[in-house]
């Protein structure tokens, strides 16, 4: 029932401190995963569409899941999501939003753009730890991924 193969996550987060928090907490679930971290929307697109410094497919294997912040420099999260959904090959790629905003308008917009899930970074340390642990179990251990 559980996935045995490591899940590759493309983690798009511009704040290095937030990236560290998410990763350290994710690590606690000890679930097999490989993670690529990029710091802005343009790099995320470069990775997914194999352009720029990620032109070589060997440097940019297809991720199973994208963990995406909304407010990013250069190209913002929603635009990245839109480009993924509009692409024939990538349109089924699961995208989980992980962001600071809990504004209703942002949540609605994300789902309108067909995000698979919307998570809000908690202020409380324990809550953030629990969140990442649950995220890990749900997506890495239980969720089945489509072949792209």
């Amino acid at each position, binding site marked *: 029932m559980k996935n045995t193969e490591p899940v590759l996550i493309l983690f798009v987060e511009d704040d290095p*401190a937030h990236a560290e928090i998410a990763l350290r907490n994710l690590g606690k679930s000890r679930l097999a995963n490989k993670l690529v971290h990029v710091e802005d929307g343009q790099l995320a697109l470069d990775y997914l569409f194999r352009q720029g410094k990620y032109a070589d497919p060997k440097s940019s294997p297809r991720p199973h899941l994208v963990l995406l912040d909304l407010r990013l420099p250069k*190209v913002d999260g929603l635009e990245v999501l839109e480009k993924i959904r509009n692409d024939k090959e990538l349109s089924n790629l699961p995208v989980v939003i992980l962001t600071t905003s809990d*504004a209703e308008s942002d949540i609605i917009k994300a789902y309108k753009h067909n995000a698979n899930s919307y998570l809000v970074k908690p202020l409380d*340390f324990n809550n*953030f730890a629990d969140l990442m642990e649950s995220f890990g179990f749900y997506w890495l251990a239980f969720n089945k991924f489509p072949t792209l």
Partner: protein
Amino acid sequence: MAGIENNEKSPKDLLLELEKMQNKIDILESSKKENQKTLEHLTKSEEKFKTLFENITEGVALHELIYDQSGKPINYRVIDVNPAYKTHTGLDPEQIVGKSATEIYGTNIPPYFEKFSTVAISGKAYSFETYFPPMKKHFIISVVSPQQDHFATVFEDITQHKNREEELKQKNEEMARFVYTVSHDLKSPLVTIKSFIGFLKEDMENNDVEALEKDINHIHSAASKMGILLDELLELSRVGRKDDIKSEIPLKEITDAALELVAGRIENSKINIIVTKKPILLNGSKQRLIQLYQNLIDNASKFMGDQQDPIIEIGFDKRDEDMVFFVKDNGSGIDLRYSHKIFDLFEKLDKKTEGTGIGLSLVKRIVETHNGTIWFESEGNGKGTIFYFTLEGTKVEPKEEII
């Protein structure tokens, strides 16, 4: 009495007739007085109306309907307009009195014909707001019918009012975006602080001193960042409020002060600065204008990229009627894909540079409080950037002329 002839009247009869005549004269007199009173009344009334007509600030126009042969109203004619009419429409009375609507406006259908004719026929007053394309103006118009088949319009040009409404709407939207941005940008470092405080406990449990130090630094940076954000926001909100306004400040004084503030970075990056020698005088807040130049110059020097021979030029052009200032650099330029975000609060296109990203927001705000506009041109990719802006009330010192 005996011996009275037909035509002769007795003194008594004469007296009676005299009385009757006196009565008639009295009646005529009182009638005349009444008529005079009525005339005075009418005259006063007419004067009242005339005073209103002549002095009212709204435009007033009297019209009558024009009918076709079958008795159907098809047009209307202007009978009279008040002096204010020209103020609101720009049209001269000679151009329009006595003419029909279709003649005046050159249209096939007389403007607002349905509304006007309905009032003229029913006698029921009506008022509405409208945009009138031939004059490119917004009006509020009241229509009333003083007599059958006639109508009068009392109207006002509200174009400015409408524009201000639109401006207010935009400012409110800007405000909402501002609040959203601020709350997000303050929440972010707070998340960091709270999470790393949690990690500190773990580090202590693991006796990991190195991790402890690193995590404390994260907390420290985030707290500092919040402090800076708050300070800058306060600064931004203060622009235009307590600013000390002076007139005829020489541009040189401003640029000298700004360059001094950025001197360190300029020297380190060995940037060549060129400043116009034209004697320009500015009106406004000296402190804010220095801030304006300081931020633009600082930005230019931070984004020199790989430029081996960095130059920043500070100058000014005369374009038609406007005096346009510019700060030009030959650095890395601005990627036009992100150009619409350039003046957004806290928006940094390159995360690795110093600063919170408030600089250009501050610059824009300062320009706006000086009734100017700011824009930029850049071809990106190492081809440099030019920031242009206007400021109200600038002039060149009288003894020099611009060729």
